[in-house]
């Protein structure tokens, strides 16, 4: 190995010296916990007791037969798919309209759609809950005008999932719209004009120019939205947590189930195995995006 020249050694010293504390924090707060989650999943690990027994894959196999986990996984998947499809569909539609016919109100639309993104979820969900209230909510009042009977938006297990999807879409769509809008605006006008000269209708321009060019960005927002939607928690916690209902009990979702196993039953190993399943979902989604991104577009 050649000796390191003094000037270079000074640079190394500077770089490593300032980087070291940050990397240490990073390792302590991100890398180690991620690895340790996987490690914990192979143990019977009590939060309060001293029981730390290696149990192999038991936690993983037991989870598969656990009705709570099954319910949580199914509910979370439904919420994630619903949120992703609806928020991206709506965002794409609005972005296209703003990009091609928004005129002067485009900026206002951006602001109105983005406000929910920066609103904290706890107060936002409270606002939704009062709109969705069975007796005095505005939504049931509006439905009543059309002769539709009051619906239990927050207490019926199926309707509560619908409500949670609605809140999640509401909170996400503005972000997706802004990202898609950037993509649409970056498509050179020249392409459209050339197509228009050749006699292509607006729809055909959109179908054959805009849409194909938007695929990578659509993929990006799809993966981001799905990952976030799989971690749904706050909406569920707040929506069902009034005087009658135990928080989050109505619609069981994965993160809620993880916390219940970990912090109520003190079963950290079991909860960690559940987190690993959630992690697998995230990894699969990332791999899908990676594979599709690296495919040359035709």
């Amino acid at each position, binding site marked *: 190995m050649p000796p390191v020249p003094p000037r270079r050694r000074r640079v190394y010293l500077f770089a490593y010296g300032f980087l070291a504390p940050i990397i240490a924090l990073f390792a302590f707060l991100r890398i180690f916990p991620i690895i340790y*989650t996987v490690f914990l999943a192979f143990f019977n690990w009590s939060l309060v007791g001293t029981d730390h027994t290696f149990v192999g894959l038991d936690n993983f196999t037991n989870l598969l037969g656990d009705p709570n986990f099954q319910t949580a996984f199914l509910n979370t998947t439904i919420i994630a798919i619903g949120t992703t499809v609806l928020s991206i569909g709506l965002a794409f539609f609005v972005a296209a309209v703003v990009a091609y016919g928004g005129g002067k*109100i485009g900026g206002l639309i951006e602001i109105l759609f983005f406000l929910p993104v920066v609103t*904290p979820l706890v107060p936002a969900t409270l606002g939704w809950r009062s709109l969705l209230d069975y007796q005095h909510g505005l939504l049931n009042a509006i439905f009543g005008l059309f002769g539709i009977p009051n619906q239990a938006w927050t207490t019926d297990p199926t309707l509560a999932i619908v409500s949670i999807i609605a809140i999640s879409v509401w909170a996400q769509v503005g972000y997706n719209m802004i*990202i898609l809008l950037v993509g649409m605006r970056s498509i050179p006008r020249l392409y459209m004009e050339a197509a228009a000269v050749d006699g292509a209708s607006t729809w055909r321009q959109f179908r054959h120019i805009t849409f194909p060019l938007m695929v990578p960005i659509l993929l990006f927002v799809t993966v981001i939205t799905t990952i976030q939607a799989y971690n749904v928690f706050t909406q569920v916690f707040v929506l069902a947590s009034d005087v009658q209902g135990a928080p989050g009990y109505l619609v069981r979702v994965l993160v809620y189930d*993880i916390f219940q196993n970990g912090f109520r039953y003190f079963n950290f190993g079991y909860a960690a195995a559940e987190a690993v399943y959630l992690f697998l979902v995230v990894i699969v989604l990332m791999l899908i995006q990676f594979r599709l991104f690296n495919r040359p577009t035709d």
Partner: protein
Amino acid sequence: MGQLRRGRAIRLLIQIALLAVGLVMVFPLFWLISTSLRPAPELLESPPALLPQHWTLDNYASAFAAAPFGSWLINSVIFATVSTFFILITSSVAGYILAKFRFPGNNFIFILILATAIVPFEIYVLPVFLEVQALSLINTMPGLILPYVILSYGIFFMRQNVMASVPDELLDASRMDGLSETGIMVRLVPRLLAPAISALAIFAYLQSWTAFIWPLLVLNDPNLFPVQLGLAQFNSSVSVNYAVLSAGAVVAMAPTVIAFLVLRRRIIEGVTLTGFK
């Protein structure tokens, strides 16, 4: 000519429809504000009116009297300010060094940071809890803040910005002038990065202001609650009606909503440039 007029009419219709959907988007927020300003008896009206018939601020007084919203807000400010301070320092220093210095491990560190940026906090929160417990920081302000002192995405963001707006020639010239490496990093670089630093500051502040899950897990003393957690607890207490609850909700959301309305251009630009959320 007729076709042109028809095109214009369609465009107007589209814009009206867009505006209607946009108003639906802000309606839950409007509804919170409107509910928070009406006296309790008006809550029972069916159908509810869009605006209060008798405007009142009593609900805000009731909210502040029934729960320590004042200290919750202060806790949130401390939490968000300290977290933002640390995230700015760690992100800028790491971003600058990773962008401008060649040394063994540089790429590896960068890829590691990038790869973990997308892993949601909920997945690895259990070991973080064990660590904070081992440090005896459960139910303390430092324990609340600790996981929020670094931001993987912030490091990535600052590295990109350093590459884009800190020229090597300027660094070399400053070295010729006898400035130390530390001097360059502390005095010169931040001046070139002002827009990026302010964008990151906004997002870091927003992140901790809206944080809910970690405060819920790590705190059980209501005096330490940030306002989101306090509001959630307020929500599950028995004697609160929707008007008082809405007043509390408005208090908890007002800072971010106002900040957004003031800084909207910068925030939307920040999102569009970085994909950051």
